[in-house]
C-alpha cells in the first residue's frame, strides 16, 4: 500500500492569554490509500486539532506550527499558502463534521450546497453539476434526489442531513475524507445506517478515511487501523486486532475497560480511569498519563518514553516496554472476554 498522508514529528500550539497551549506535541502517523484509520482519544487529546491541521482549518493565529510536516500527495501542508489550500480543501481532502444540524447552510438549498464545490473545483457547468448532485444524493440513499435538491436543510432529519453532508464531502471524489465524530449526534439506529453507508461508499470509491471518534464500538466496526491519542501525543497505534487484543499501553487498556460490554452478564463495577487528563497549557514533562496510571514508575514522571516498535504497524510509547521495567499483564476484562 502506498502512503497518502504522512505526519512527521508534528508540533502545533495555540498562543492564548494564559500562555502557550501545546495541543499537539510530536505526533507521527500515516494513512495509506484506501485505508480507514480511527483517531481515538478524549476531549482535549488533540484529535480534532490534528484533523483540522490536515484540512487547514485551525485558526492561525492563534495557532501555529512549531515543528514537523504533514505530507499529503507530495505536498507539505504545513507550509503551503491559503490560496493553495483552497484548491485542496473540498477537492482532495474533505471533511464531515459532528453536528449535521449546524454544519449545513440553512439559507441554501441542498442542491446548491453540493454543486458549489463541483463548480469551483471541477469547473463543471451548472447543469452538469446539478446532474452530479442528484447522482451523489442517490448514492447516499436519499429518496427522490431530483426533487429533494430543491429542499432546505431544515426540512431534513438529522440522519438525512448527515447523508447530505457525506454527499457534499464526496462530490469531488476526494482522496481523503476526514470524519469528525460523524455519528455522535445521531441515534443508534440512525448511526447504524450511516456507518453502513460509509462502509459501502468506502468499498465503492476507495477513499481513505480518518475517523475521529471516542466510540470504540464504531472503531471495531469500520476501522482498519487505530491511533490512540492522549494529551497531544500518540500513546499507541496499531491494526484493529493489535489494539483490541494485543494492546500494550495502560491508557488503551483503560479505554477498553471503561465501556460496559453489551454481551457481558456481569453487573459489577466498571474499571474506571481515575482523575482527569492534564492541562496542555503546562503539560507534564514525562508521560502525560502517568498521574492516572496504576503502573506509573519514577521514569514515567521524568521523561516521555520513546516509541517502541512492536511490529511494522504496532507502536507504543510506554516505559513498561523498557527492558528494565517490570512485566505487567493487561488486567482481565471485567465483562468476561469472548
Amino acid at each position, binding site marked *: 500500500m502506498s502512503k497518502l498522508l504522512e505526519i512527521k514529528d508534528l508540533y502545533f500550539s495555540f498562543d492564548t492569554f494564559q500562555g502557550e497551549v501545546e495541543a499537539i506535541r510530536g505526533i507521527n502517523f500515516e494513512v495509506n490509500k484506501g485505508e480507514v484509520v480511527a483517531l481515538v482519544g478524549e476531549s482535549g487529546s488533540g484529535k480534532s486539532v490534528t484533523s483540522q491541521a490536515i484540512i487547514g482549518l485551525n485558526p492561525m493565529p492563534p495557532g501555529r506550527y512549531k515543528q514537523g510536516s504533514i505530507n499529503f500527495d507530495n505536498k507539505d501542508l504545513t507550509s503551503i499558502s491559503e490560496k493553495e489550500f483552497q484548491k485542496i480543501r473540498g477537492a482532495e481532502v474533505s471533511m464531515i463534521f459532528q453536528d449535521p444540524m449546524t454544519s449545513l447552510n440553512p439559507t441554501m438549498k441542498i442542491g446548491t450546497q453540493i454543486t458549489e464545490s463541483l463548480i469551483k473545483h471541477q469547473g463543471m457547468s451548472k447543469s452538469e453539476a446539478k446532474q452530479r448532485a442528484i447522482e451523489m444524493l442517490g448514492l447516499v440513499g436519499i429518496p427522490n434526489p431530483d426533487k429533494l435538491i430543491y429542499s432546505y436543510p431544515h426540512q431534513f432529519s438529522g440522519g438525512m442531513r448527515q447523508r447530505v453532508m457525506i454527499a457534499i464531502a464526496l462530490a469531488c471524489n476526494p482522496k481523503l475524507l476526514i470524519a469528525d465524530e460523524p455519528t455522535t449526534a445521531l441515534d443508534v439506529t440512525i448511526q447504524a445506517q450511516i456507518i453502513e453507508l460509509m462502509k459501502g461508499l468506502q468499498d465503492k470509491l476507495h477513499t481513505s478515511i480518518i475517523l475521529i471518534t471516542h466510540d470504540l464500538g464504531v472503531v*471495531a466496526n469500520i476501522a482498519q487501523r487505530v491511533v490512540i491519542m492522549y494529551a497531544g501525543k500518540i500513546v499507541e497505534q496499531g491494526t484493529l486486532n493489535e489494539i483490541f487484543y494485543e494492546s500494550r499501553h495502560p491508557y488503551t487498556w483503560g479505554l477498553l475497560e471503561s*465501556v460496559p460490554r453489551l454481551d457481558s452478564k456481569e453487573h459489577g463495577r466498571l474499571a474506571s480511569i481515575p482523575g482527569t487528563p492534564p492541562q496542555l497549557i503546562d503539560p507534564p514533562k514525562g508521560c502525560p498519563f502517568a498521574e492516572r496510571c496504576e503502573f506509573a514508575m519514577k521514569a514515567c514522571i521524568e521523561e516521555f518514553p520513546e516509541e517502541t516498535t512492536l511490529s511494522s504497524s504496532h507502536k507504543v510509547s510506554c516505559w513498561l516496554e523498557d527492558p528494565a521495567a517490570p512485566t505487567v499483564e493487561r488486567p482481565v476484562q471485567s465483562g468476561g472476554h469472548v
Partner: protein
Amino acid sequence: MGAKTLLDIRNLSKEFKVSGGRTLKAVNDVSFSISEGETFGLVGESGCGKSTTGRTILQLYNATEGEIYFNGENIIKMNKKQKYALHSDMQMIFQDPYASLNPRLTVTEIISEGMDALGMYKGDKSGKYDRVLELLNKVGLKKNHANRYPHEFSGGQRQRIGIARALAVKPKFIIADEPISALDVSIQAQVVNLFQDLQEEENLTYLFIAHDLSMVKHISDRIGVMYLGKLVEVSESVELYDNPLHPYTQALLSAIPIPDPKVEHSRERIVLQGDVPSPMNPPSGCHFRTRCAHAKKECESMIPQLKEVEKGHFVACHLY
C-alpha cells in the same frame, strides 16, 4: 424482587399544545412501576418521550392523563404545598453539567439551595456547611472545592456537584436524565461507579434515562424501551438483552456497535430503514409498524397493549 413498590405509574399521558391547535402526544398511555432500591432504565431514541416521562413524574410538567403513585400516594392529586414537600423525596440529575449549574453561585450555595428551599438546617449555618462538606466528600470532591464556582471544574466534576445537590435533601428516589452522555468515556465509568456506590450507601431508587444501551444495561435492574411515546417492552435487563421480543428492541440492540472487532465483524445486523416518524402524526395502530419487518394487517388497525409474555417480561406487539 419482593421489595415494596416505591413508584407506580398508571396510564400516564402527556400532551403538548403545538401551534395550529394541534397536540403532540409526547407520552402515550405509559404504565410501569419501580421497587424500592431498584434501578429502572428507560431507553429510546430522541423524541421517544423518555425525558418527558421523567419530568412528568417529578411534576415539572403536569400530566394530561393517568396516575403517579409515590409511596402509595397519588401525587397528581396533591396540592401545591404537598408537591413542593415531595421534592425532599424526589430529585433530578440533569444531562448537561455545563448548563445545569448556576454559574454565579459557589458550590456551597448550589448544594444548599435545595436544603434552604425545604427549610432544612434553618438557623443552623454551621450544621448546613458540615452537611455540604459531607456531601462533597461523598461524591469524591474535596473540601476546598466548596467555595469555588462551576467554571473551575471539569465536566465530570460538575456532574458530581449536580449529584451532591440532588443528594442534599436526602431523597429516596432520583431521576437521572442522561447523566453521563456529555462526559468522556473514561469519566463516564467514574460517574456510573459513583451512582452505584451511592445507591448502596443511601438505599436510593433510580430512574435512569439514557440512550446509551450498554451503559443502561450495566446499571439497571429492569429496563423499559420506549418508541414514539409508547412503552413497547419492559423486562429485567439481562433478559432484555438475551431475549429481546419486540422487533424495535431487537433492532435497537443490533444497532449498538460492540467494541470487539471479531464479534463486530461476525454478527448480523438489523438495520432499520428510514427515520422515526413525527410524533405529531404517528402511524395508526402500532407506532413502529412503518419500520417493522414483521408488520401485519392488524398492526395497522389495532394498538398493541403491553402484556406479560414471560414472567416479568412485558411486550406490546401483535407477534405475541
